[in-house]
């Protein structure tokens, strides 16, 4: 038997114009075998997402879009070293987060800022991490967008791809032992799913029956690599069956489909301790990162097709059809969010960098004698050349004036060196 006949349908609920698919359309049927929507009465008569939740999701999507646009611009202006946008994938990450309980663990890859925003991470908290200032929970150690929050149950992001997937399996195993009815969701791209850690994680999750949801954002590209060079089979979803795991493929630009699928997956995970794989089909509308230019590997025409499927616009159409949102609210909210982001960025930029002592804290629970000595060596060195290490010197209490004195002394020394050079012909060092 070959897998050619296995082509998993896409669970869809919402058309781009904001109307719902009729409940009996074939593509409206997902294949989560338990708890799916097929037995529900016509969903057009009831609200798939209740009003307050829907509006919170939508505002979070708008905030994420505004944040992304503003921060990419800040990176282009040289105010920020690096950035990654969530653009086009807001429905996937926010719709899924909205279907979880607040104390479920989220272990994400890096393009899931929307899920963190959903949980209430403030604009200032985002900014503090990106600018690595003294209020960054991560103490300025990681690149921008590597967020984490213990209070919001959002595991700190790390750059190595897919490493969080088996960690999510282990985390969920601990939740199962604790028996408090919580689960873990881990979110990753279709490229990361090629890592060995993906295989290890899903297999172990099935064998050890853990309450974990594996959510793959299949956005068509891993940097420049299109998905046809990532895998030969029908995407990520069917891999679950080889692990004896349930699976569903959803339209990742359809917030209702993502929300309902995650809700059903959570119920299965928590009630039966069975892991679930969700593959959300979407498109990375933005560049991979601020260091990437997609024009080298894909066409504007292709991007335009997907821009027409914008998940935010789709949800807005639905909200307006419900009478829950208007042109005026759209404009007022957009203006207010842009103002909030800009003001927050200005505040974060002005804050001091982390204290010099944070160089050696948290390597271990307490610094070793060797680390303490290395910090002392660095401090002694900074005392000699404070102007060369303005952040550390400020942390040690050097004033701007003292830095200037140091800078001038060093410049004078360099000038003496240059004027001496012709004397020995630059041959000796």
């Amino acid at each position, binding site marked *: 038997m070959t897998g050619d006949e296995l082509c998993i349908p896409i669970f869809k609920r919402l058309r781009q114009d904001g109307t719902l698919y009729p409940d009996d359309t074939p593509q409206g049927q997902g294949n989560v075998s338990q708890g799916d929507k097929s037995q529900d009465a016509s969903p057009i008569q009831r609200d798939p997402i209740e009003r307050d939740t829907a509006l919170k999701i939508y505002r979070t999507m708008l905030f994420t879009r505004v944040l992304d646009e503003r921060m990419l611009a800040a990176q282009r202006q040289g105010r920020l070293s690096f950035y990654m946008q969530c653009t086009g994938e807001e429905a996937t990450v926010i719709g899924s987060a909205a279907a979880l309980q607040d104390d479920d*663990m989220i*272990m994400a890859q890096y393009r899931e800022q929307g899920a963190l925003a959903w949980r209430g991470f403030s604009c200032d908290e985002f900014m503090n991490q990106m600018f690595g200032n003294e209020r*960054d*929970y*991560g*103490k300025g*150690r*990681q690149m921008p967008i*590597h967020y*984490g*929050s*213990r209070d919001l149950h959002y*595991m*700190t992001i*790390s750059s*190595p791809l897919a*490493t*969080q*997937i*088996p*960690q*999510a*399996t*282990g*985390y*969920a*195993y*601990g*939740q199962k*032992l*604790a028996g408090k009815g919580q689960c*873990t969701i881990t979110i990753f791209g279709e490229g990361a799913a090629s890592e*060995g*850690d993906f*295989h*290890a*994680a899903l*297999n*172990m999750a099935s*064998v*050890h029956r853990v309450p974990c949801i594996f959510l793959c954002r299949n956005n068509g590209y891993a940097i420049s690599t299109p998905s046809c060079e990532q895998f030969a089979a029908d995407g990520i979803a069917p891999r679950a069956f080889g692990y004896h795991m349930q699976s569903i493929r959803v339209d990742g630009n359809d917030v209702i489909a993502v929300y309902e699928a995650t809700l059903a997956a959570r119920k299965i995970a928590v009630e039966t301790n069975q892991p679930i794989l969700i593959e959300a089909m979407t498109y990375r509308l933005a560049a991979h990162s601020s260091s990437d230019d997609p024009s080298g590997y894909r066409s504007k025409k292709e991007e335009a097709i997907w821009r027409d499927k914008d998940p935010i616009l789709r949800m807005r159409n639905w909200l307006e059809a419900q009478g829950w949102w208007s042109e005026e609210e759209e404009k007022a909210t957009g203006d207010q969010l842009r103002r909030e982001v800009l003001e927050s960025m200005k505040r974060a930029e002005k804050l001091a960098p982390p204290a010099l002592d944070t160089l050696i*804290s*948290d*390597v*271990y*629970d307490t610094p*070793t*004698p*060797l680390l303490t000595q290395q910090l002392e060596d660095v401090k002694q060195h900074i005392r000699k050349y404070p102007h060369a290490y303005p952040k550390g010197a400020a942390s040690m209490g050097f004033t701007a004036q003292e830095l200037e004195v140091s800078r001038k002394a060093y410049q004078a020394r360099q000038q003496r060196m240059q004027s001496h050079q012709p004397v020995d012909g630059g041959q000796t060092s």
Partner: protein
Amino acid sequence: MNMLQAINNALDIAMAANPRVVLFGEDVGVFGGVFRATSHLQDKYGRERCFNTPLTEQGIIGFANGLAAQGSTPVAEIQFADYIFPAFDQIVNEAAKFRYRSGDLFDVGGLTIRTPYGGGIAGGLYHSQSPEAYFAHTPGLKIVMPRNPHQAKGLLLAAIRDPNPVLFMEPKRLYRASVGEVPEADYELPLGVADVIREGRDITLLGWGAQMEVIEKAAALAEQDGIDCEIIDLRSILPWDIETVCNSVLKTGRLVVSHEAPLTGGFASEIAATVQERCFLYLEAPIRRVTGLDTPFPLVLEKEHLPDELKIYEAIKQSLNY
């Protein structure tokens, strides 16, 4: 007790004392591990706390990292240290950096990784390696290597309870060969602290794990020549006890370091460089490193490859005659 019994006893005590201690790895469940270090523990504590995993080292340590981050105390077993490399990424990029990168929001301090290491058992390339130096270059990790049953129990209990991820490397050649008095009670030996096994005047001999037995034999040979050796078991590779080692060399003026792992990039290099920096004026002879050759670990010529007591004895004499 032999070393395996001491380790089994330590795991039993740790599991009884803390319900969040969870053991897993390949074949550690009902079978009790290929070396039987986890014998009877599944019977006693149930399948949820002592279980087999699929055969995937990166999965085992990834799982362990997640479980530790959740607040449990995982004790993961890698069947042979030779097979720890698939988990290198999860150990070096994840476990070791978990606390630092999150600003202490999250940590995997509960994690202990147990793994049998070392040669001398006709294990060839992939059942003999001593990979401690690969991990010694990894801030955030602790590395511990016991030399006998008493040390194994006390250090393992300390490792499991230490609030940092610990790589606990067990000298499998001594699993059954090393037998000694081990208290039944719960006790811990400190991590990061070397053990001066024997005081001496003329030269400092330094090693860890199974190599201590070899070093002690070399010291006995040298003693017949009237050479009074000071013998130190480093016990912890990371962080290592610089003070104890340097104090000894300041006294003796000579140092021989011996390990099974290859010379180039081996941990003896780190020790030699540090001692040279700190004890420069007191050194009477170059620091000698007696180690495995810079080759993969051979099968038939294992004895020739390994730094045995005769090779160490020769290094001692050369240092004294320098």
